[in-house]
C-alpha cells in the first residue's frame, strides 16, 4: 500500500500515458460518423465502410503518429506541472520558516549539530586513515615494507624501521618496479638563538620518482647526487618552507640554508601540499647517504650491519603483482639473507607490504583507531538528532491536522502532501548542512590544534569531499526525518481530523514514545563511550611513574652537528650543569645519558657465576648513567641502600643502583645490596649494587615491569655518549625554560639551538589518544544529552497540552497537584528507563560478542568496558537529565485549572 504510494509519488515521467484510448475513440467516432453519412447518401454499408477507410488513409500509421504526439505533449505538461508544484512547495517551506521561526531554528540547529559532528569526524578520519598523500601517482600500487620478528621470550613485534641492508636486498624483488628508502628525522634550521627544529627526511635518490612527484620548481635528487661517500650538501624544500622563508621566490634554487652545522644548497621545491608520506609534515629532504654521514656519524654501521634499524622502505608494485605475492617473495629473500647471520638468525621473520594509506597508522599510536571509533559513534549523534527532529515534526503535524485535512478536502493529493513534507525535511537538512559545515570547519581546526598537535594538516579542515559528504548526509537525514510524518499523512483520515482536534490517537503517541526510547538507547551508548574514555584518560594520567614529572625540565644541545668531539661534548655538559644550577628558580639539576619517554639504552650485563639470566617481555635491563643529584632531581625514591655520591668517582669502587623489578628478577628472595654485576661487554670489574630504587617508567604508559639500573656518570668509561640535563624547578617549570635555554646558549657562540622541554610535554603525547577520545566523546555525549532533554521536554509538554481536558477533570475529581505531576514524571522515566536498559544490554553484549579483546585493550587504557562506575554514571546522568526534562511539564500538569480546561474545548 505504502510502497505503491511512494512509487506513484515519484513516477514523474516514466509511466506510459494512456493516450491511446483517446486517439482510438477519436478515430472510431470519425469513421462511424463518416460511414453513417455515406449510408445516408445511398451507399451500401460495405462500400461506405471501404470508402470511409479509404478517405482516412493508413489508419494504423496515423494512429501511431497521433499517440506519439500526444504522449510527448503530456510528458512536457507533466514536467511543467511537477516543477510548478515544486516551486510552490518550496515557497511553502520558506513561508513556514518565516511564520514559525522557532520550530525551524530548533529543527535546523538540532540537525546541524548532528551533521557538524559527523562531518568533523569524517574529516579527521579521512585525513588519518583514508586520504592518500597528495601528488602520489597511483597510490594504490605504493606499498610500505614492514618486518615482523618473533622473539622466543617476548613474542612478535612489527617494525616499519628496518636496516639499510634490507633496501639492497629487497631491490632484487621481481614484484616491485622500485624500492626507495627514507628516514624521518628532525634537524635544527638556522643559526644561533633564532634556530629551531624542523622535520627533515633523508631520502634515496629514487624516492620522489617512485612516488611520481614532480618538483614545483628546480629538480629532485638523482643518483649522482648521493654517492656513498663525499656527496655535496644539497636539499629539496617543501612548498610551505619556500613560501615562509623565501616568499615563494623563483630564484630560490641555488640559495643555501643552514641545517645543523652545515649549509645546504637548495636544488628544488616539492609541489604544494606534498609533505612526505607520513602524518608528520616534512619541510626539507636531504640525500640519504650524505645526510646519514652528517646525522648518524661517519662510520659505516648504519649501512653495513643488521643492528641499525632506522630506514623505512616504500616500493611500487608491478601492475600484475599483488601485495601478498610481493610479501611472500620479500619474506623469502629476507630469511635467506639472515640464515647465515648468527646475530640475526631469524627463520620466522615475515615481511608484509602494507598499503601506503593504511600504513600511515603504523606509528604505534592509538589515535587513528580511536578516531575511527569516534567517527563511527558520531553517526549515533546524527541518529539522535534525526529522531528528535522527526519527533518535533510529528508533534507539529498533529497540531496542523486541521490545516492538512482542509488541504486534502480541497483536493490536494496525498502524494503531493507527502512530497511537500519530505521536501520540507530535505530543505531543513540542507540548511542544517550549511550550518553543520560551519561547525565542522570550526571544530576541525580546534581539534587539530589542541588535540592532535603532533600531526601536521596541510589541507583546510573542510574540502570538496567533505562538502559532498555533508550534503549527502543532509539528504539522507532529511529523508529519514521526513519519513515519520509522511507515513502519518499516508494514513490520514481527513474526515475525522476535520471534525475534532481531540486527544492524539494511540499510534502517534506510540511512534513518538518509540522515537524517544530510541534516543535514550543511543544516548546511553554515547554516555558509555564518553565514560570509558574519561576513565581511560584518568587512569593513564594518574599512573605512578615512580618519579615526579611535574616541575621537571629536560635540556640538550645537538653538539655533534656543531662539530664537537665526544670529549668536548662531555666537557660542555659538565659546564652546562654548573651553569644551569645558577639560573634562578632551579631547585636542582643533574646529568643523565637517557631522557625518560625519549631515549633508552641497554648494554650487555653478566652476573658472576651465571650462564644465562631470566628475561622479561619488556627486554632490558636498560640503564642510565647519572650524576649524584639525579634521584633527588627526578623525585625517584631510593627504597633501600643509597643513591650515588660525589665519592663514587672514576677512581673509586664501581657501583650501581638497580630498580625493584631487576632486584626481584635477578635475585628473587635475596638481598640484592652487596651483589655485583659486569656491565659492558669488556667489563672486568664487578660493580657492586649499593641501592634499590622504585620502578620508574621511562618508555610508555604500559605497566609491564621493566628492569632498569643506574651507573654513576663518572664511572661509565665511555659506555654512553648522549647527555641530557634534568632540571627541577622550584616553581612553575615553564617560567624558567627560556632562562635555561639562554644560559646554555651563552656557554659558546654559534651553537645550534638548545632544546628545553617540559617533562609533562614528553608525557603528553602518550595521553593524547585518551584525551582525544575523552574530549570528543564527552562533547558528543553532551550534545546527545542536550538533544534528548529537548526531545523529552517537547514530547511531555505536548502530551500535557493535549491532555489538558483530562487533567482538568482529574483535578476536578480531586486528584492532587503532586499526584498529577508524578504521573507525568513516571511516564517520562518509564520510556527512558526502558531505553537505558536496552542500550546497556545491546552495547555491552555487542562489546562482548563483536569486539576482539586485543582491540579493546588498544581502544581503552586499562579500563574494562563493564566498569560498574562508568555504567552507573552513564545511566544515572541520563536519568537525571530525564527528570530535568519532565520537571516543567509535570508542574504544568498539576496546575491545570479544572473549569478552564473543561471549557477550553
Amino acid at each position, binding site marked *: 500500500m505504502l510502497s505503491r504510494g511512494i512509487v506513484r509519488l515519484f513516477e514523474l515521467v516514466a509511466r506510459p500515458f494512456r493516450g491511446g484510448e483517446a486517439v482510438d475513440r477519436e478515430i472510431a467516432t470519425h469513421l462511424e460518423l*463518416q460511414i453513417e453519412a455515406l449510408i445516408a447518401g445511398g451507399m451500401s454499408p460495405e462500400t461506405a465502410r471501404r470508402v470511409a477507410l479509404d478517405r482516412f488513409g493508413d489508419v494504423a500509421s496515423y494512429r501511431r503518429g497521433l499517440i506519439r504526439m500526444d504522449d510527448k505533449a503530456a510528458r512536457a505538461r507533466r514536467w511543467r506541472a511537477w516543477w510548478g508544484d515544486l516551486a510552490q512547495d518550496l515557497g511553502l517551506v520558506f513561508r513556514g520558516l518565516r511564520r514559525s521561526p522557532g520550530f525551524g531554528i530548533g529543527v535546523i540547529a538540532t540537525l546541524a549539530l548532528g551533521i557538524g559532528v559527523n562531518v568533523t569526524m569524517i574529516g579527521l578520519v579521512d585525513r588519518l586513515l583514508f586520504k592518500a598523500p597528495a601528488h602520489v601517482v597511483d597510490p594504490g600500487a605504493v606499498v610500505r615494507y614492514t618486518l615482523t620478528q618473533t622473539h622466543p621470550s617476548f613474542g612478535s613485534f612489527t617494525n616499519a624501521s628496518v636496516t639499510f641492508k634490507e633496501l639492497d636486498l629487497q631491490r632484487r624483488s621481481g614484484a616491485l618496479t622500485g624500492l626507495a628508502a627514507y628516514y624521518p628525522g628532525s634537524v635544527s634550521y638556522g643559526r644561533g638563538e633564532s634556530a629551531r627544529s624542523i622535520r627533515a627526511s633523508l631520502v634515496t635518490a629514487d624516492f620522489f620518482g617512485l612516488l611520481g612527484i614532480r618538483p614545483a620548481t628546480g629538480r629532485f635528487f638523482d643518483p649522482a647526487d648521493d654517492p656513498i661517500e663525499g656527496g655535496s650538501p644539497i636539499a629539496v624544500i617543501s612548498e610551505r618552507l619556500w613560501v615562509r622563508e623565501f616568499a615563494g621566490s623563483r630564484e630560490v634554487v641555488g640559495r643555501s640554508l643552514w641545517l645543523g652545522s652545515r649549509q645546504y644548497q637548495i636544488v628544488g621545491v616539492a609541489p604544494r601540499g606534498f609533505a612526505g608520506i607520513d602524518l608528520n609534515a616534512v619541510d626539507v629532504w636531504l640525500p640519504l647517504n650524505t645526510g646519514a654521514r652528517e646525522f648518524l656519524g661517519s662510520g659505516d654501521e648504519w649501512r653495513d650491519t643488521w643492528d641499525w634499524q632506522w630506514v623505512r622502505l616504500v616500493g611500487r608494485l608491478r601492475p600484475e603483482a599483488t601485495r601478498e605475492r610481493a610479501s611472500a617473495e620479500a619474506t623469502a629473500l629476507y630469511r635467506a639473507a639472515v640464515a647465515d647471520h648468527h646475530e640475526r638468525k631469524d627463520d620466522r621473520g615475515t615481511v608484509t607490504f602494507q598499503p601506503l594509506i593504511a600504513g600511515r597508522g603504523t606509528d604505534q599510536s592509538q589515535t587513528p583507531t580511536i578516531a575511527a571509533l569516534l567517527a563511527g559513534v558520531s553517526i549515533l549523534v546524527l541518529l539522535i538528532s534525526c529522531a528528535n527532529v522527526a519527533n518535533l515534526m510529528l508533534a507539529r503535524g498533529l497540531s496542523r491536522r486541521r490545516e492538512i485535512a482542509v488541504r486534502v478536502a480541497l483536493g490536494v493529493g496525498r502524494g503531493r502532501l507527502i512530497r511537500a513534507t519530505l521536501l520540507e525535511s530535505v530543505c531543513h537538512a540542507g540548511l542544517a548542512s550549511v550550518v553543520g559545515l560551519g561547525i565542522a570547519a570550526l571544530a576541525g581546526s580546534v581539534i587539530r590544534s589542541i588535540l592532535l598537535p603532533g600531526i601536521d594538516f596541510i589541507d583546510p579542515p573542510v574540502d570538496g569531499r567533505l562538502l559532498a559528504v555533508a550534503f549527502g548526509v543532509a539528504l539522507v537525514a532529511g529523508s529519514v526525518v521526513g519519513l515519520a510524518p509522511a507515513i502519518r499523512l499516508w494514513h490520514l483520515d481527513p474526515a475525522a481530523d476535520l471534525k475534532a482536534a481531540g486527544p492524539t490517537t494511540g499510534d502517534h503517541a506510540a511512534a513518538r514514545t518509540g522515537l524517544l526510547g530510541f534516543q535514550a538507547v543511543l544516548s546511553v551508548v554515547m554516555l558509555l563511550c564518553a565514560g570509558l574514555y574519561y576513565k581511560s584518560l584518568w587512569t593513564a594520567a594518574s599512573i605512578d611513574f615512580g618519579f615526579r614529572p611535574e616541575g621537571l625540565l629536560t635540556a640538550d644541545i645537538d653538539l655533534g652537528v656543531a662539530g664537537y668531539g665526544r670529549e668536548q661534548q662531555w666537557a660542555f655538559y659538565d659546564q652546562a650543569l654548573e651553569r644551569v644550577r645558577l639560573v634562578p628558580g632551579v631547585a636542582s639539576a643533574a646529568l643523565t645519558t637517557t631522557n625518560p619517554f625519549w631515549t633508552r639504552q641497554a648494554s650487555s650485563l653478566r652476573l658472576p657465576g651465571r650462564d644465562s639470566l631470566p628475561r622479561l617481555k619488556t627486554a632490558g635491563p636498560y640503564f642510565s648513567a647519572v650524576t649524584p643529584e639525579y634521584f633527588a632531581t627526578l623525585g625517584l625514591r631510593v627504597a633501600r641502600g643509597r643513591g650515588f655520591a660525589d665519592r663514587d668517582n672514576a677512581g673509586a669502587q664501581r657501583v650501581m643502583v638497580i630498580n625493584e623489578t631487576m632486584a626481584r628478577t635477578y635475585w628473587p628472595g635475596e638481598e640484592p645490596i652487596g651483589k655485583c654485576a659486569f656491565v659492558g661487554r669488556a667489563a672486568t670489574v664487578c660493580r657492586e649494587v649499593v641501592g634499590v630504587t622504585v620502578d620508574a617508567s621511562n618508555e610508555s604508559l604500559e605497566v609491564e615491569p621493566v628492569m632498569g639500573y643506574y651507573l654513576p656518570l663518572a664511572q661509565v668509561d665511555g659506555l654512553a655518549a648522549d647527555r641530557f640535563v634534568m632540571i627541577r624547578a622550584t616553581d612553575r617549570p615553564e617560567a624558567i625554560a627560556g632562562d635555561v635555554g639562554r644560559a646554555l646558549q651563552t656557554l659558546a657562540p654559534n651553537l645550534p639551538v638548545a632544546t628545553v622541554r617540559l617533562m609533562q610535554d614528553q608525557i603528553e603525547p602518550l595521553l593524547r589518544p585518551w584525551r582525544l577520545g575523552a574530549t570528543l566523546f564527552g562533547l558528543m555525549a553532551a550534545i546527545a544529552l542536550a538533544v534528548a532533554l529537548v526531545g523529552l521536554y517537547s514530547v511531555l509538554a505536548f502530551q500535557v497540552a493535549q491532555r489538558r481536558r483530562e487533567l482538568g477533570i482529574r483535578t476536578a475529581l480531586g486528584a492532587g497537584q503532586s499526584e498529577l505531576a508524578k504521573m507525568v514524571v513516571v511516564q517520562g522515566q518509564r520510556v527512558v528507563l526502558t531505553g537505558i536498559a536496552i542500550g546497556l544490554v545491546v552495547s555491552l553484549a555487542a562489546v562482548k560478542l563483536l569486539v576482539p579483546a586485543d582491540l579493546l585493550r588498544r581502544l581503552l587504557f586499562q579500563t574494562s568496558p563493564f566498569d560498574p562506575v562508568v555504567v552507573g554514571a552513564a545511566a544515572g546522568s541520563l536519568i537525571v537529565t530525564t527528570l530535568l526534562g519532565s520537571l516543567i511539564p509535570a508542574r504544568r500538569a498539576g496546575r491545570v485549572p479544572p473549569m478552564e480546561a473543561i471549557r477550553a474545548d
Partner: protein
Amino acid sequence: MRGQPLEVLQGTLDTLMLKALSWGPRHGYGVASWIRETTTDELSIEDGALYTALHRMEQRGWLAATWGVSEHNRKAKYYELTELGRRELKDARARWTRYAGAVSAVLEARA
C-alpha cells in the same frame, strides 16, 4: 472537366482547418466534411492527415480541445480556436492573399 484532385500546398492545410473552425467548435469529422464540401472534393486530403494537423495545432496552443457528445450520441473530441489560433488564421489569410496576388500578377502579366 475534372482532373485529378489537387495536392494540398504545404502549410495551407492548417489555414483551411483554422478557417473550418472559425464558426465555432467542431469535431474532427465535422472539419473534414466541411472542407470536403466547401472544396467540392477538389483537394486530395487524407482524413488521417487532418487529425495529425489538429493535434499539432492543439499542442501549439492554436486550438483547445474538449470531449463532448456528437449528434448521434457518440463521444467526440471537439476543437475550438483559441485567441492564438484566431490571430494565426488572420495572419495566414493575409499571407495567402499576398502570395496568391503576387503569383497571379506574374501569371497574368503581358510581356
